[in-house]
């Protein structure tokens, strides 16, 4: 601690402290600016820091619940669970690792599919769970996405997908790689049916997910400052042996380079996406 730090009142010093010094539960510390917030307030703000507008990563379940209208949300295809067909083992067996992750996260794999209403329009929504193997896409993710597309066609409801993924799941090897073509082919079918697909890319969307379903939206939306790209920044740095430019592979960079249509803050997403869907001619649910 420098002499300057020593004479500062502890109240000011505290904001410079490492993560974890804030008591769990009641308070949340912004991982970007370090601002300390009431958890309840942070929660109400949809996990976005009111001070610096940092969009914190958010669980798939939470994301869907804040995105859809209140009321009935129905989870679909939740019977699907991973299979260790390659008997993959690194330091640990894949089978053991995903079972542990299932227990820890309460999710069976890295993609959730729900039906519900968005501003009274019936929609199908998918969201990636980043805490499940880095949101990586293996057979279950691919199959669930495929089924979500088929459900969209069957219900003639728009499809919305929130991606957050490190890419393909290594433990399922080529099975994972082929989920890229599987999900892309499903979207080609959806497109022929004239049903809108809105892709929302959130922090981070990389590798095999970014090079398939995440960039194939009729409209591609990104959350502010999300890391989005094919190759990871570290791999690129090692390959080109130079420092990456400021803001490289962030949402704003992507909009500048023509990958995404717009950047939309989390709080504005329901309304903006509902408006887009309505403009495409998909109306409110008449049943209500």
């Amino acid at each position, binding site marked *: 601690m420098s002499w300057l730090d020593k004479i500062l009142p502890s109240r000011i010093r505290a904001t410079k402290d490492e993560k974890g010094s804030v008591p769990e539960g009641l308070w949340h510390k912004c991982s970007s600016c370090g601002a300390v917030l009431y958890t309840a307030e942070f929660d109400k703000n949809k996990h976005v820091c009111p001070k610096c507008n940092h969009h914190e990563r958010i669980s798939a379940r939470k994301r869907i619940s804040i995105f859809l209208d209140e009321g009935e949300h129905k989870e679909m295809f939740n*019977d699907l*669970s991973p299979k260790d067909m390659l008997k993959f083992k690194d330091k640990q067996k894949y089978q053991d690792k995903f079972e542990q992750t299932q227990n820890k996260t309460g999710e069976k794999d890295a993609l959730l599919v729900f039906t519900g209403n968005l501003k009274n329009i019936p929609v199908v929504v998918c969201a990636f769970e980043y805490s499940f193997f880095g949101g990586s896409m293996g057979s279950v993710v691919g*199959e669930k996405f495929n089924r979500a597309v088929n459900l969209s066609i069957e219900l003639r409801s728009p499809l919305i997908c929130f991606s957050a993924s490190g890419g*393909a799941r290594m433990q399922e*090897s080529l099975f994972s*790689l082929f989920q890229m073509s599987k999900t892309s082919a499903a979207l080609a079918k959806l497109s022929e049916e004239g049903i809108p697909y809105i892709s929302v890319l959130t922090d981070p969307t990389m590798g*095999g997910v970014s090079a398939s379903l995440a960039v194939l939206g009729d409209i591609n939306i990104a959350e502010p400052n999300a890391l989005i790209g*094919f190759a*990871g920044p570290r791999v690129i740095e090692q390959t080109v042996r130079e420092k990456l430019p400021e803001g490289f*592979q962030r949402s704003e960079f992507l909009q500048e380079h023509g990958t995404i249509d717009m950047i939309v803050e989390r709080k504005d997403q329901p309304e903006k996406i509902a408006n887009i869907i309505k403009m495409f001619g998909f109306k409110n649910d008449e049943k209500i």
Partner: protein
Amino acid sequence: MSDYNPNYLDFEKPLLEIDNKIKAIKTSASASQRDLDNIESLNKDLQKNINKIFSSLSDWQISQIARHPLRPYTLDYVSHMFSEFIEIHGDRMFGDDKAIICGLAKLDNESVMLIGHQKGRDSKDKVYRNFGMPKPEGYRKALRAMKLAEKFNLPILTFIDTPGAYPGIDAESRNQSIAIAENLYQMSKIKCPIISVVIGEGGSGGALAIGVADRLAMLQYSIYSVISPEGCASILWKDAAKANIAAEALSITSEKLLNHKLIDRIVPEPLGAAHRDYNAMYSSLKSNIIEMINEVRSVSLPELLESRALKISSYGQFESQ
């Protein structure tokens, strides 16, 4: 001098010595009858050694053969398997990627659209070909070529041989992700037959971007993987030197992938792998391609598209409880 040659892999070293002896006799001006008899016994010895080495290759050794410095590349096949080749350049948007070549090719009496990754042989050529790692313009050129094939109802033939799509600032700036995704999307519905052959290294999304097909084949000693064994080892084992273990775990060989029904056929390689007998490799691949073309030509286009869709959507294994 004779114990180092970059064109021999570690485990091929026993072959180097015999090859050198044979070469010495053959190039000697004064070869006697005894020398010629000697060649015969050396050849037998060579076969024996090759058989021994190749009967128990590890998956990591197969990966090394797939990247062998002498392994035939796309352009080698182009000049020996096809009677005619008219190369087309550029994506009509940005530029011409040298890591992917496209062109109209004549295979016996059949015109095909040939698309393949191209690696370089010497260091200058390697740089020129960007080590076989395409940038977005490469994938866009490939897609343009595929659309052309669709228009004139030519079968598309793709040769896969890449470490992966290029991870660079320029490639990202020009939307590598979209270039790859767009190919996957379009290839699923393109209205002409697609046949893909992994001839060397099938490196992840960069390979798949020209590999969505009605028939997917692999040369016997090629590999196809979601990540390189080294990359996987450095992430999961925190040590790139564990690549041999990762290669095994990833199931990337033709034999394993055929067992998992992820590929349709294995194209046999000559004794000692493709680089030891180019001509045998060309004729093996050619006859396999002709068989595959006949297969895809034997069904109507709507049937072909339907079975392609079914094939793509059936990839993956999972439990449902």
